[in-house]
């Protein structure tokens, strides 16, 4: 077919394609509800949930949510092929820097022995299994949305989708997890989110090409 003829066919196709923002609006809330439902059924909320959510350990829920929101902001921008998302990248990096700084202070205060104790807990493995499991449906929703976009680098877009889903997974997980020590949950949640980012990158390589 000559290109001129192909253009005629393209021009006749007036059906609009899917939009990433619309898919996100449609898919994210149900995905989060599904994750919450999974938590209630398979993990159950922590016994002192009300106290936890009104105290300092609310940070365990809010911090991952902030990561998720920032990653979503970046992901939305990455849907455009010419995107140069300086502000979005800076926000996400900034959050990481704050987390690292907080961890540094906690480590300096608690010492390496305290870190070893926290990382020796069996709940670390529960966390590393649970955050990705809870992030699964949100990851599906975000990747589905990004497939409607045109990311210049599919692996990078997938990793960012994984950061968003991991943030949501960790936030949901925090409703069960009763380990409130900074030296535990900062590295544990970061590792859990990191695993989901890795999974997102692998998915991105296959599913976000166009």
């Amino acid at each position: 077919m000559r290109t001129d003829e192909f253009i005629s066919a393209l021009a006749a196709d007036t059906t609009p394609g899917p939009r990433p923002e619309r898919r996100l609006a449609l898919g994210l809330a149900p995905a989060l509800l599904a994750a919450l439902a999974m938590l209630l059924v398979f993990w159950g909320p922590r016994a002192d949930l009300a106290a936890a959510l009104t105290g300092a350990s609310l940070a365990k829920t809010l911090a991952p949510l902030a990561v998720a929101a920032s990653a979503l902001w970046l992901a939305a921008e990455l849907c455009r092929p010419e995107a140069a998302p300086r502000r979005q990248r800076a926000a996400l990096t900034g959050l990481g820097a704050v987390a690292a700084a907080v961890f540094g202070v906690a480590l300096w205060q608690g010492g390496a022995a305290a870190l070893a104790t926290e990382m020796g807990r069996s709940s670390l493995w529960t966390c590393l299994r649970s955050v990705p499991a809870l992030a699964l449906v949100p990851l599906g929703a975000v990747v589905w949305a990004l497939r409607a976009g045109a990311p210049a680098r599919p692996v990078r877009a997938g990793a960012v989708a994984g950061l968003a889903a991991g943030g949501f997974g960790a936030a949901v997980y925090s409703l069960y997890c009763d380990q409130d020590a900074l030296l535990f949950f900062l590295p544990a949640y970061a590792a859990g989110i990191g695993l989901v980012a890795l999974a997102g990158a692998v998915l991105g390589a296959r599913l976000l090409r166009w």
Partner: protein
Amino acid sequence: MNDQASRSADWETLMRAANRGDSAAYARLLREIAPVIRGIVRARGARLGPEGCEDVVQEVLLAVHLKRHTWREEAPLRPWLYAVTRHKVVDAFRARGHRVELPVEDMAEVLAAPEGPDPLLARDMEKVIGRLEPRAAEIVRAIGLNGESAAETGARLDMTEGAVRVALHRALKTIARLRERMIE
């Protein structure tokens, strides 16, 4: 510079009109864009030969079509267009076993190239259309080659105009997917 700027302004206007359903504006935009894309592809595509180049041009146009909603209407069109072109050209070269350096900054300087008279170009696209379901291929060819409107095609195939448009849209998405698999 002024000439390019005024042509660019036309493109944004045309694309905005296209996004509001103006098929004539959209067709005109695609016909103005195609030579620019062809110039970019040919600039690095000596190894592909003229058939391979035209294949890539059509692949880029298909991507422009399927991803046109990712263009932000307040932004200039060319950077978006160059980014789409670069993405598909790099993929196309990789599928044929070549790596290519294609910086977006160089694209503005490339000379536009009109389509040649040879009807045997773009064979990969022909192959892929041949792999569609017969009705889908029929619709793509009727509207493309024969210049039928969706209504005329519908009347001939005993389908509503709406059904023809949906079938056309699905056929184009399938073509894109099949081309992706050819790369893998």
